[in-house]
């Protein structure tokens, strides 16, 4: 019932907000939140196409993306906590040991 481009525009705005967050925010937890926004935008697209093409595969991939996102957040927050314990800061600009 919902026309496809409306849902795609919604997802595009989510993805752009996520890109802005990753680029602009320096707090590592905020960067993780912005990545979640981008993953959600992808999920919206997968489900919208699945619903519009009458194929269930898109919804299955959305479920997989949700599972991978959950794993990513768990590991990401563990790394952030470890970072805070070692450096007493979670500013991603200060973590430049491997920077060329």
């Amino acid at each position, binding site marked *: *019932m919902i026309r496809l481009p409306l849902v795609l525009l919604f997802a595009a705005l989510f993805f752009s907000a996520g890109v802005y967050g990753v680029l*602009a925010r320096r707090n590592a937890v905020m960067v993780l939140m912005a990545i979640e926004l981008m993953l959600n935008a992808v999920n919206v697209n997968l489900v919208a196409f699945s619903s519009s093409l009458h194929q269930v595969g898109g919804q299955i991939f959305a479920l997989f993306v949700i599972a991978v996102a959950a794993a990513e957040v768990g590991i990401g927050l563990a790394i952030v906590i470890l970072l805070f314990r070692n450096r007493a800061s979670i500013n991603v600009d200060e973590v430049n040991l491997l920077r060329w």
Partner: protein
Amino acid sequence: MSAQEYAFVVVAVIGSLAAISVVMARNVVHAALFLVIALASVGVTFLLVGAEFVGWTQILIYVGAIVILFLFGLMLTKAPIGRDTLDHTWKNRLAGGIVGSLLFFGLASLTLRVWPLDETASSQPVAGSTAALGESLFRDYVLPFEVVSFLLLAALIGAIVLARKDDAA
């Protein structure tokens, strides 16, 4: 426009404002709470396009679990509550704003060129897609399903190993 579409537009506007507030918020706890609204609006969108199972999974896992994980992460890292100046400098905001808005307008114009809003027919959602979803998941996608469960196990162990304090070493 159908009633469903009106409902979607309302949800999408709320969700979009919340998503923008997440990345613009000065207070990180407020950002996490805006994230609840944004993720819930995505869940409602899933319900509206007829993907009930994914919609409820989204609400249970994202709104229920992942946001709580974020709040724990914020508490454990003693993130500066209130106005933080280190985060979000004007240079980063400018670069992020340019890239983000260019990306949005690019994606939006591409979408509207391929699917013009007044010419695209609305599609009927599949009724009762949960049964088909389960059948396809456990028939065609069994191997990816098992791989994902293994991935979750590895992530669980990895997170415990990373985050626990080494008393013995």
